[in-house]
């Protein structure tokens, strides 16, 4: 009995310095699988450590553990960034590893993540993992040409395909118009990108439309209390999410099934 208590206290030890503890419930299908989730967030100076645990019920053999570490750094004028890595392993021998880095340096910003997923059904929520099996890389870049024009570029490459996109954002007063083009797998699979962002009654509203080979409409809304987004795509897919206070709710439905994730972040500030 003493051993049990000791193990329990040992498990609780990281809470003493933890910044936050996230509790969540994930549900997905087809069929019904429920995933109670815990994410412990532990900042230590410029370092932040994360520990993840998700149990899938009733298939308990899919229980998943994860660890992550990242380090923030300052990088000259208006510069900051972070590098990190995280990895997950499941009882059914699936695993997922990812390294990531981001840097904002004056007029340019770059985000890069490279990962590898093995034998796992992708889960779009908590955390956002590779949507494909095998090795993948994501790249997002921004470059401010002047105070009105910003060049945006993104790429997503994975085993068997890829996607690349470039767009120009033009800011007029407090509104931003975006126009660009992208392609899926090859140049002939092209699509257009149109975007509009504006402040509205103390909030910010942004709409983005991708039309062509890729058909997708995304709407973002944010005010002081709520952040919400809605994505509608064809072939049929819908995703919606809302975050308020310490709560967040995300849902997705597509032809393969559905996913749902509700989470609450408990601030600890070190117990």
């Amino acid at each position, binding site marked *: 009995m003493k051993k049990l208590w000791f193990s329990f206290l040992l498990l609780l030890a990281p809470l003493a310095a933890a910044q936050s503890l996230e509790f969540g419930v994930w549900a997905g299908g087809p069929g019904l699988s429920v995933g109670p989730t815990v994410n412990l967030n532990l900042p230590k100076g410029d370092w932040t450590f994360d520990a993840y645990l998700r149990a899938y019920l009733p298939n308990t053999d899919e229980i998943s553990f994860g660890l992550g570490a990242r380090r*923030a750094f*300052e990088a000259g*004028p208006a510069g*900051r960034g972070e590098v990190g890595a995280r990895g997950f392993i499941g009882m059914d021998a699936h695993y997922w590893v990812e390294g990531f880095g981001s840097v904002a340096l*004056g007029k*340019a910003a770059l985000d890069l993540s490279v990962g590898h997923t093995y034998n796992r059904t992708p889960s779009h929520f908590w955390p956002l993992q590779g949507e494909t099996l095998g090795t993948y890389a994501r790249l997002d870049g921004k470059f*401010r040409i*002047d*105070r009105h024009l910003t060049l945006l570029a993104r790429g997503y490459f994975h085993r068997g395909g890829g996607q690349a996109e470039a767009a120009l954002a033009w800011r007029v007063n407090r509104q931003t118009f975006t126009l660009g083009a992208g392609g899926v797998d090859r140049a002939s699979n092209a699509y257009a990108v149109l975007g509009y962002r504006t402040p509205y009654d103390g909030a910010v509203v942004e709409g983005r439309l991708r039309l062509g080979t890729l058909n997708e409409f995304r709407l973002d809304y944010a005010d002081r209390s709520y952040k919400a987004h809605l994505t509608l795509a064809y072939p049929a897919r819908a995703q919606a999410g809302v975050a308020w206070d310490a709560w967040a709710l995300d849902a997705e439905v597509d032809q393969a099934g559905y996913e749902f994730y509700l989470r609450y972040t408990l601030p600890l500030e070190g117990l």
Partner: protein
Amino acid sequence: MRRGLALLVLLGLPALAVSAEALFDQVAQVLDQSPWEARLQGRIVTPGGDAQEADLIVKTLPEKQIVRIEFQKPDALADNYVVITPDKVYNYLFLTNQVVVYPRAKARIEGLGFDLSRMGDLRKLGEEGEVVWDAPREVRFQKRPAWHVVGRAPDPEASGFARVEVWIDREEKRPLRTAFYDAEGQPLSDLEWTAFRTARFTADDLVAFPPDAEWIEKK
């Protein structure tokens, strides 16, 4: 008659002289009495050692000790802003739409080789012994009657500067120009205060960020 006049002038001079401390008290009174906004234009040196053109809009709410510095130039900082409150410093980065929050004690105001938050309180620099001020001299600054005060830092390495020069409007008792120099005499920041006006800010006006910004809290 001439001797009498000369004696009167000599006797009168000490009464006209003003110490740097008394002058900064008067400036502080002006700057502390109501919210104000000013445009600061000139040059600053980045941590990389490059001198860059600077154009900043400073907004303050003295009652709550809140300062907001909006960057117009240099280009690399344009549209970024810093909000300094008694306990926190908020650094907004436009390009990534992020707000990085630091505890005031650990704050790093990104992009500047010199901490702008210390520039406004000249009186405190003297009180804390960081600067030893010379007696103010009467000069004209852009045709306006002004006081010119020079201060020297006994410990330049600790202060981050070796010398500071300030021009103060003699009538309105507000800064006209502030310049900080390193030990080699190279300017770290040299800014003219233009478009000074009192305003009606509230704390919510100054501690305001885009609602869709990502928040990063540094401990």
